[in-house]
């Protein structure tokens, strides 16, 4: 019997999502350890590269959310070091991390995504906030979602109902990132589709419908147990579920993703799934929809994690 691979789980980091990453990393490490893998949990820091040279783990799993974890930088370094890792490669991660870029790529393969505009602080400085926001409102309406162009966990995200909301939402989003996506708000059913690929091709897990009690799947709704009700399978017509699943796989492929991702959609009343964003290292905490979906679909979650590690080891990027 082949020896179980040694795994270095990286979690924490210095992104805004450190807290979530620490929780996700712990869950991943527990799941892998329960399947007999030798797991080391570590915060990426200035000693990491020396550690990698010295300890030579078989596989690294960067369970890092936010910048440096999902922006491809760390994965690029792992490629240079010739170390196998779980998750998409650096280029794909960089694309998915950038929400406007991901939207554009996904749209090209026929997946709808809400109309939007991405604006930098410099654009507002040069052109004036009032006229820019007026133009945006005229074009996209006032029912909008404003989000940092990079980042996850709904940090910096606002749901806008008026021009005054929009102004405040811009300030909120710009405190997280220097460019902001203003997106037309789609009213409907929010679903997420985890996708796993353990070596035999990407496989969509049945979509999970998300119903936050507050009405918005914000940070509190995501990470307060009980603040969101999940439906799996989603309460959608079978044909719509099939479309959502297909589109999730299309998005996964269009973005060149690998191993594990979560694709988020809003499904409108016509049954059209609108792509919102893709996460190359989705949250895997106790309240995260990805782990819930795997569990509900009958998977042994730790077993899936172990299979992802095996897959990474077998075919490094």
């Amino acid at each position, binding site marked *: 019997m082949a020896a179980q691979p040694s795994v270095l789980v990286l979690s924490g980091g210095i992104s*805004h999502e*450190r807290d979530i990453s620490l929780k996700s990393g712990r869950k991943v490490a527990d799941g892998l350890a329960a399947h007999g893998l030798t797991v080391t949990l570590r915060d990426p820091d200035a000693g990491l590269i020396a550690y990698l040279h010295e300890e030579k783990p078989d596989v690294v799993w960067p369970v890092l959310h936010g910048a440096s974890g999902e922006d491809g930088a760390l994965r690029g370094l792992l490629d240079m070091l010739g170390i196998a890792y779980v998750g998409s490669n650096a280029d794909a991660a960089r694309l998915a991390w950038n929400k406007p870029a991901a939207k554009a790529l996904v749209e090209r393969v026929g997946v709808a995504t809400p109309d939007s505009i991405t604006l930098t602080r410099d654009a507002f400085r040069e052109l004036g906030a009032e006229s820019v926001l007026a133009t945006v409102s005229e074009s996209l309406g006032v029912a909008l979602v404003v989000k940092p162009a990079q980042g996850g966990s709904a940090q910096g995200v606002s749901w806008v109902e008026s021009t005054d909301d929009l*102004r405040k939402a811009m*300030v909120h989003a710009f405190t997280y990132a220097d460019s902001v996506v203003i997106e037309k708000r789609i009213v409907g059913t929010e679903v997420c589709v985890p996708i796993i690929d353990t070596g035999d091709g990407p496989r969509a897990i049945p979509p999970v419908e998300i119903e936050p009690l507050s009405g918005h799947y914000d940070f509190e709704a995501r990470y307060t147990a009980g*603040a969101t009700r999940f439906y799996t399978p989603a309460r959608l017509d079978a044909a719509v579920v099939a479309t959502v699943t297909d589109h999730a796989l299309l998005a996964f492929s269009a973005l060149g993703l690998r191993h594990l991702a979560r694709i988020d959609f809003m499904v409108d009343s016509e049954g059209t799934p609108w792509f919102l964003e893709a996460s190359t290292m989705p949250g895997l905490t*106790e309240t995260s929809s990805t782990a819930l979906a795997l569990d509900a679909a009958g998977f042994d979650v730790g077993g899936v994690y172990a299979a992802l590690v095996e897959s990474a080891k077998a075919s490094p990027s």
Partner: protein
Amino acid sequence: MMSPGSGISLDPWFDNYADRAEGLSASEVRALFAVASRPEVVSLAGGMPFVAALPFDKVRSSVDRVLSEAGATALQYGSGQGLPALRERILEIMALEGIRAGVDEVVVTTGSQQGLDLIAKLFINPGDAILAESPSYVGAMGVFRSYQARVEHVAMDEHGMIPEALVERIESLSAASVPMKFLYLIPNFHNPAGVTLSAQRRLEILDIAKAHNILVVEDNPYGLLWFDTPPPQAIRSVDDSGVIYLGSFSKTFAPGLRVGWVVAPHGIREKLVLASEAAILSPSSFSQMVLSDYFEHHDWKAQIDTFRGVYHERRDAMAQALAATLPTVSHTMPEGGFYLWLTLPEGLDSKEMLPRAITELVAYTPGTAFFANGEGHRHLRLAFCYPNPDFITEGVKRLAKVITEEIELVATFGPSTSPVRLGANLDSPPPEVS
């Protein structure tokens, strides 16, 4: 989990919680403080005492002596009121601030935070008012809220709570027939405002409280940590019937031992002991015996002098850095303690600004953490207790950059006030954050 037909709740007891649990939820702001523990970040957020200044060899000798000479007692349950030997030491400490009391008047608690909880448990019915400074200690407000009190802030200035404002607030609450259970004060080196209640105001406020039959709760964790001159004597030193006094070893020794105390009038004290026994049976015998031994065998006053020197130097570093990099931002100048209170330029929101600060690798506590009524957006608290002077200087420099960028952002979009979420300690760092 519920059946898939009705959806899955990750907390099947979500609808069963008591009303007082409202607000105990995940917080976007609080999650940001996780980054503060990284070495790249200068954290001016938490209030961790600089325990590295303790003589660990001496602490170890006390631990060894306790275990070798009285290990079986130290590791056993103890008195609900606390060990008499430590209570005697506490009397010596309080005497430094003019308090005369007997050994039986002291109740040892698991940190003064437990003392606060016990007092709140004894006095607060849902809807009762607690009078507190504006701003006030976030940990106290969390306790008061958990007993469903309404915290009524009373304005303060550089000399502490304003007596006239207190009278006004008492009269308005009386007119509305709102029961007022006690007045909560941090007279020395206030957390978060950094100011000290003047001697004259102490007496005035005590008179006002007495006249309106309102109990005073005097929380004094920082009183011995003065820089140049000691603060006025404790309020409890002039009144032993209408004042409950809270003391702590967390700042003058180490918070890891979790030992504080309460001195209260007889009737209240009896109930405090019973309530404490119901909650925790007894405070840690081990911690109490280590403290007692340390105070018996080592020069604890010299140790407090050491802490004063450390914090004084750090306060100076922070004040100098602020003067150099943020000359237009006003702040208080504490004469002791851990904290300095900043007032931001008009239109800025410290809570909204925090993610940018984290990006720039500096952390602070938004002013909103210290108000129960949603105020405080224009303020922030800076703690100078933990980082060394060089880090403080660097942290303030980074903060200056953040504030400059935020001014620019507000100039572009106009002022924006972050949404108010009242409830638990959602805008403050957890206790382990430096």
